[in-house]
Each structure stands twice: as C-alpha cells, then as structure tokens.
C-alpha cells in the first residue's frame, strides 16, 4: 500500500469496532457507526493502491443497496465486477434488435469486440441484452436501464445467466463509455455512484466518477483476475 493510504488507514482505524471478514466482501455484521469512531475497510490491497491514484476516497462495504429508479442496486467494486463477470470486453455497438424472452422484452445490442479481457472459453460475446424495449405488441420500461448507441465504443462487464442471456452487471455499473483524449489516449468513463448510505450496521458505499485510461483499467482488472486465480 502507498504510504499515504497506510497513514489514512491507521488514523481512521484507531478505536474502531469492526466485525467483518477480509474476503473481498463484508459480512452482514459489518461496521457499527458512532460519532466517535468509524472504521473502514483496509482490505483493498494491491488493487487499492492503483485505484487510489485516479479515484477519490473509495470506501467500500459490500452489501449496500443503491436504489436507482425502479431498480435497487448493490454497489459493486471494480474488483467484484471483474471477478463476477463472465466476460469483459471493449467493443463497439453495431446494431440492436428487440426481442421477447418469456414475458420480458430485451433490447439486444450486437457487439463488435475490439479487445477481450475476460471471456468464457475464449469466446467473444456477440451481444448484450438490456431489459426493456418494444416487442410482441408490448412496450416495457425498466427505469435505470441504459441505452447504448450504435457506433459507440464501450467497456462492458458482462454476465451470462444459466438461461444463456448475457447482460450488463448492475445495470449500467458495468458500462464504461470509451472516448479519446486530446492526446489520442483511449479513456473509459463511468458516472459516479452518487450514493452514500449508512445503515443501522454502519455500512457505507460512496465513490466519485470513474474515469481512467483504458490501459490502466484493463491492467487493474487483469491483475484482479490473476490474483484470483492464484
């Protein structure tokens, strides 16, 4: 860990009462918040060192809901998304169709994969389904569902269900818009979580907008995946 991070952890962790496991997610009996002491997770390890360069203070306790629209979300860290995703790609949307699966309408975006970070058996995902759309005489709205644009590049953290449907993780949590800096660097950007919550057990999640060079994001993810396999 960086010296700065060590100092921060040390100062904040003094006098803390905390009950959680250092396993990448937090036990349900997490932090108890009181006006005097507040502990924080210092389990980010190597990944944290890299994240802290670009992100503002990132305080992570898993298991927090992030109600967003008619969708209640769980805040996922970058490491969690990397671990739980079945595929991670940089891709361009080439088109879309709307389909009915059972009683649910999905807008399926076709992907032209430009770069693969993670893929099941090396197979590049051909598309990603987002809930909502118009099909079979029905118009379904799922507030919070992102809209992808044809021709736009994205970094996508994807998850394929047992039923074989590939979707974005955590609504648009797993969606980074790809642009280019003035110098031509590929930059991946995602909106801030905008969520700060302390529940009765003192769990909290908060972050700022995430924007970093694609190379750096790819590196972080790769290292997380590598660490997970060791």
């Amino acid at each position, binding site marked *: 860990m960086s010296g700065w991070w060590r100092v921060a952890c040390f100062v*904040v962790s003094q006098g803390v009462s905390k009950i959680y496991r250092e396993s990448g997610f*937090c036990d*349900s009996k997490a932090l108890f*918040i*009181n*006006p005097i002491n507040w502990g924080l997770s210092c389990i980010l390890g190597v990944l944290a060192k890299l994240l802290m360069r670009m992100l*503002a*203070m990132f*305080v992570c306790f898993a*298991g927090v*809901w*992030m*109600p*967003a*629209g*008619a*969708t*209640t*979300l*769980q805040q*996922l860290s970058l490491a*969690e*998304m990397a671990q*739980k995703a079945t595929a991670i790609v940089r891709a361009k949307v080439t088109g879309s169709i709307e389909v009915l699966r059972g009683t*649910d*309408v999905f807008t399926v975006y076709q992907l032209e994969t430009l770069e693969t970070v993670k893929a099941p058996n090396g197979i590049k995902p051909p598309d990603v389904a987002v*809930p909502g759309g118009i*099909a079979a*005489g*029905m*118009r*379904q*709205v*799922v*507030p*919070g*569902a*992102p809209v992808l644009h044809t021709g736009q590049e994205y970094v996508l953290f994807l*998850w394929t269900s047992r039923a074989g449907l590939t*979707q*974005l*993780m*955590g*609504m*648009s*949590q797993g969606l980074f818009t790809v642009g280019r800096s003035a110098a031509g660097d590929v930059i991946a950007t995602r*909106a*801030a*979580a*905008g*969520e*700060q*919550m*302390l*529940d*009765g057990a*003192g769990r909290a999640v*908060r972050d*700022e907008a*995430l924007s970093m060079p694609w190379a750096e994001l790819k590196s972080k993810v790769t290292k997380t995946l590598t660490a997970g396999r060791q």
Partner: protein
Amino acid sequence: MRAAARTRRALLLLATLSVISPVASAYYYYVFFANASSPYIPLPAHYDLRAVKDSTIQYFISDAPPGPLLAGDSLTDIYSEIRQAAEVWNGVASSGLRLHFGGTRNMAAPQTVPGIDVVFDDNMPPGIVAQTIITFPADLSFLSAKGTTFVPILRAKLQLRRDLTAAGYQQASYTDAFFTTLVHEFGHTLGLQHTLTSAVMSTAITRATTRGAPLAADDISAISLLYTARGLHGGFIASTGIIGGRVTVGGTSGGTGVSLASVVALSPTTGVAVSGMTFPDGTYELVGIPPGQYYLYVHPLPPAATGEGSPANIVAPVDPADDNFAANTQFVTQFFPGTQDWTQATAINVAAGAFVTNINFAVVARSGPAVYAMRTYGYPNGVAIPSPPLVTGTRDALVFYANGTTVNNQTAMAPGLGVSVIGNAAAIEPGSLKYYQQGFLQAVVDTAKVSANTPAALAVTLNGDLYVLPAAFTVVANPAPTVTSVTSQAVNALQVVTKVAGTNLTTATRILFEGSPATVLFANADGSLAIAEPPGLSGSVATVEAVNADGQSSLQSLADAATRPQFTFPQLNAASIVRTPAVVTAGTDTLMVISGVNTHFAEGQTVVGFGSSDISVRGSWVVSPTMVILNLSVDPAAQVGITYVTVATGLEIITLPDLFTVVAAPPNQISMQVPILNAVTGMAGIPAGGTALIRTSGLPVDLTGWTLSVGPENVAFTADTNGVLTVNLPLDLGVAPQPVQLTAPGNPPLAVVPRVILQIDPPSPVILWTVDYPTPTDPTAPVEPVLTSPSTPVAPGGLVTAMVYGLTGANKDLPGAGAVYVNIAGNAYPVTAVIAVPADPNSTTPVQDLTYVNFVMPAGLVTDPTVTDPTVPVMVGTGTRLTAPFMVNVAAPPPAAPAAQ
C-alpha cells in the same frame, strides 16, 4: 351578492379545472404527450380501472418462492411484508385504486386482466437487488386520437432476488429498508416515477419515510391525482390547491422554457413538500397541494448516477413518434421570487380549490448542480438513522454527505459551504458546521418545541448554487417506542393474552408482527400493552415491532438485530383448507365456500386469492374461524386449467395448488351477476322485505318453469327485457349472507346457473328528525338546537344533527364516525361525530337504537334565490345500509343585486 360571487368563483374554478388535467403535476408518472409541441397534453400511464372489477388491481406472488432465507426469516414473514407494503397504497382514501392480494400464481399462466406480479429471480445480473418492469402497449398511435386521456399499464412485474442470503443481497424482511423498498417498488408498478421531496417515491438516497409513516404528502398527491376517487372519498382536487407558472432561462419575457425542471412547494411550518415538473416549454402546474403557506423553489434533476439511465432515473416523456424530451439540468436552483436565501422567499398562500398563477422563475444557466444527493444521519441510541427523528427541545449531532460538499479527495469541507434549516422547527448552531471524516460533514442541531412531528428541510448553499433537502430530519414531540419483551399475561383464570412491554407505548400504538397488526386490548398500569396477536402458522416466529402515530418505531434504532423482540406462535395442528365448488366456469359469477381446519379466519382480516387476475373476489363473508364464503367473478377469457387458492389471515397464509379448476363456458352459459343490488339504494346490501335487483347474462326470454330461491325460501320474481330480475325478499330472511339459486326447469335442468351470495342487511336506519344550531340574535344567549323547518332552515356551512334510529344494526356495535357517511343531494360527505343517545337511567324500557349523527351542511346546494322554502334530500348511511331521503330545509341564497340604473 356574496352567493353570486361565490357562484362565479365556483364556475370559474370548474372551468379552470376542466382545462387543467388533474395530472398536470406531470412526471410523477410515466408520461406520453399527445403532441410533439406546445400546448403539451400529458397522457399519464395508469391501469384502466374499467378493465378490472371494482377498481381493484390484484397482485400475486410467484409460486417459485425465494430461498434460501436469512436465519430467523420465513416465507410467511416475507409474504406478510409484501402484503403490508401493498396495503399502504390501499390506505390512501382519496385514491380510487385498490390493491387485492391474489395469492400465489404460476407466472407462466397467461393473464388477460391487468395485474402485478412479484417474482423472485436470480437470473438478474450481479449488482441488481430488485427491479420493476412496466408494460404498456407498443403502438402509441392512439396518443393523438381524440378522447385519449391515458396510456394503459398492461401489467407490472416487481422482481426480487431469490437467494436472500447471498453476500451483498441480504434482506431481512422485518427491516424498515425492506419494507419501504417494497412500498417504493409498488408505487412504480402503479405508475409513479421518482420525486425529489424525500417521499417514499424518492430514491433511498433521500427517502425519509418509515414503516410508521410510509407515505409523504407528495406520494398521496401523486396517487390521488392518478387514480382520483369518486363519491365519499372524492373531492381531492377541490380540497387542495394549485400553483402554476413557467420556468425560463435567459429572462422571463424572452427566456427559453426549461424542460423537466422540478418545482417544489415546501411548507416552512409543516414540512410538507409537493412537487411536479415542467413541460418542455417550461410551464408547470402543481396540483394537489394541501392548503397552507408554501415557499416555492425550482431545481434541476441531479445528474444520472452509476446504474441510472437518466437524471434521477426518471424516464422522460415521449410523443406519438417515440421521441423523448430530455431534461435541462443546467441551471441554478432558486426560491421564488429569484432568491437563494429562503428567508427572502415569498410565502404563497394555497387555499382549497384555488389556483395561484404566474409563479414564474427566471433561472440562471449553470453547467450542473454544485451540490446534490444529500443523505443525513442522526444517532438516537448511538445507531445511525437516516433522515433521523430528533426529539423536541434537544441538541443533536447531524452527520451528512452530499456530492460537492467536500474537496481534496473528500478530506475537507468545501470552502464557503452554508447549511441552514428552513423554517423554525430547528436551527443549526453557528460555527458547528465542519468536516467529520471520510467525506462526511457534521453539524449540531437545536430543535424547537413542537407538539406534532415536523419534518425540517435543509438549504445548502455553495459557489452561487442552492440545494434543498426536504425532511432532512424530523423534529418529534416524543421519543420512539421500544419493545423490551413479549410474554404471556394471565387476565383471569381462563384467559391468557400476550403482553408487550417497553417504553412510550399507548393504546394508540400499533403492534406489528412481521407487519401484520395485532389488536391492542388494553394498557397495563406498568405501561405495557395486552394484545391479541394476529393469526400465525403453528410454530412460526415473528418479529414484533411497536409503531407510534408519530411514525417512529421500535426497530428504527435497534443496534443489534439479534436482540429484536420475537414471538413464537404456539404449536398447533397444521392448518389446511378445502373449497367448494372445485370447478368454476369462465364468464360466470359464482359462490365459493372455503372451509378450514385449524384456521383462524376473521372478518376484515381474511383475504382470499385465486392466483389469477382473471378471477376476482367480489365479496367475502367470514362465517366462522373455519369458514369463509365468497362471490367470485371469472373473466370470460380466463385461462382454462388449474390454479391456486391462497387464504391469508394475518400471518396465517395457506396456499394450496391444484385445488381449483377453471373450465371453458359451454354455449349459452347463464350467469347471475354480482353484486346483487338494493333496488332503492343501488348498493350491495338489502334488508329482509326489501327489493333486490339481480342482473343476469345469457338468460332466455321465456322463463316458464324457472324458480328462484334465496336462502331456504323460494321467492317470486319478474324479469325485464335486459335480463334483470326483480325480487321482493321475504320478511323472515335472517340477517346474513344468503345463497341465491336460479334453477332452470327440467330434470336434468336445461341449464346450470352457478349460485351467488346476497347480503341480507338489518333493517335500514331511519332519520327521525334534524336540528341545527342557529346563532342567537342575543350574543349572550346560549346556542340552542332548533328543528329544521321552512321557518328555520339550515344555513350553508351550519352544523346539523340528525337523530337516526337503527344505525347499529344486528351486532349493536356503534359504528365510528369514519364508518358513517351522509349523502346530501346525491353526493357523499363525511360526518363529524356519531354519538349514541344516552339511555335514561330512570327508565326500565330497553335501550333504543338511537344515534346522533353530526355533519356540516355544504354550501352551494341551492343556487336559485327564487325557490320558495328550498329543501335538500339527506340520507345517513353506514356500509350498505342507507336511510330513506329526509328532506331538510336549507337557507335560500339572497336575491341578485338589482341592475344598476
């Protein structure tokens, strides 16, 4: 003269209201525009209540249950919380929509009638805890058709995760968060979108509602305008006010309209906040504001956060071409008129039925809000509570976070940040605002003396911008209740009740078992309560919570969930149910009997569902703890096949599959239609000796040989050309639900007509006389009641007392004022008091069933000054029992002023 002026104002208001859509407070809803340009005609999406029976939408829980569950939780607990969350919306009297628990359903079975499905599914990607999917028609071409007033919601699905123990998704059913999330999601299924007033339809970032006070004024306004109630509970629009104007950027006269700006009416004294959003041209109308004084402010929607598809995750309106209208989020928040200092804001007086216009805003452009998404916490009992209750007359720490309020990687407070409390309910101690840690700030709040709960809003200023958070905390008059133990209490040698011990408990406290209400029997001298718990399944465990009328609950500040009070239902033999008949026919109405073993059915508590929105319960009667009888309507397009039956009484929820079959209707199927109506009152209850009207379908013209029985007696009947049977009921029929059987001639009969239930009521009550209380000419003389007559008519707005005989009915329990209504000239009104006429202590005759019913004579009933001795018909009713009209003399309006010469 005054009456004429009132008449003109009333007509003007009616004209105005007829122009204003009652849903002009747009974007609470999913909105579609009939046209792509001004004037914008909003068409909100809502259920078509004409497509369902009794304006009731059924909601179902999937037959694929959740699991695994957290230790100590159960399916019954979860289902109880779901039911109670739906009941919150049923509790809005001014809403004409009702929700009914339809029980367990096989989600693969197609449905024709609209409904709501609650499902548990782990095929949602990681990161999603719950989502709501709303289905509308795909083709929007009807939007511009003349007469279109709304877009129908065809169905809605509320999707929760199945594994409720998975890391990150742990959801304990007894928590406030689980409950308010359900209430919030149900709101979406009914057609409500987000607001930013800390109401239940706000996201949990700012939501300030609790189990004890689950809806805010904004929510009540939203649902009441979307599904406006008629009759007794109608008049929401007339009892509330409207504020309208326009928001522009670049100057009021030459400025550009600001699209989807949020305009909020905030009361500095009551904390009530009602909001709406502007149309694309910047115009707005806030409808449904309770009377009072308000500050008005306009603010941009906050930027879309991670996981959100749009600012505040509000779905923008679309036009017939499917083009949507994006929100303009780039301007500075301001109070009216054009200030960021709330102490300089103009207090706007809102009166019932009044329309305050030209409340315009000329906002200043800005790249985005400096501050947004604020979350506050307090620490009662050392536990962090969001939007906390702060006891009156105390000094409290308030911790908060908001985007933009910190700098230097969230390690310091932003320079120049200012925070103040709007109104007088509390104040922030000067100099107490400072950085706390980890991006949080803190301040010390001094609360004022209040006698009732007062939500307090915060105003945050920074870098020339303003942010307002309604209900940032609530100043409460009393501490929260606590529950320390749940034990048994012997009342006498034979009777044992349940005793709930704790603090701040009164007979007005609600005691909830996993959200299901117990009956408070009495208060003990030590402050504990003796209660009767709701029915529950043998051996099941329920978390017990106390909720006071001020909205505070005992679980709100519980530090350790493991110490929450629980009750274990006694071990009994398992409960089960059987039904008769086993088969129903599509397109018919029919009687159904549910018999239980070891059940505890209770009137007013037992709900029956049949797992299909095509099967509606039209009436239910609990005959005994082990028997309930029902009237059902089966839609003609109901899916043929087997479906579930679910009977829920408190926490006693029994579901059986394969218990009930729908079969297709044979050609020429005949059916009686429920409810059977009283020919005099038009309501679904008829006294013995009264006249019943029975509607039918498929009845042949020639009814030779047909017989009709009501209960045990054959009765004569006549039929009109529309198949409506008129029946004079025998005088000796018992007061009870009675089966009605229409039998065709022949052996076997030419046709089989399902039986239905007819409600036999006690004899109708009778108004004996009415008095009013005219103001005496001698101001020192006492006010005396005077019989109403042509010489002593009732003045508009005057109090009237009616002496009513027979109001209590068969059970002799005096109904409360809320259960009695008065119908005056065809409109229903509430009563102000219901008082039993005291018995004469010196008389030996039995106590008569006599009741005083007080009500206020409304104004405007008589408008023609030339009518001599005008009267209005007055009827008093309770449930389905209504008196005959009693003519009451009312004062005629004064003659019009002579024309000027």
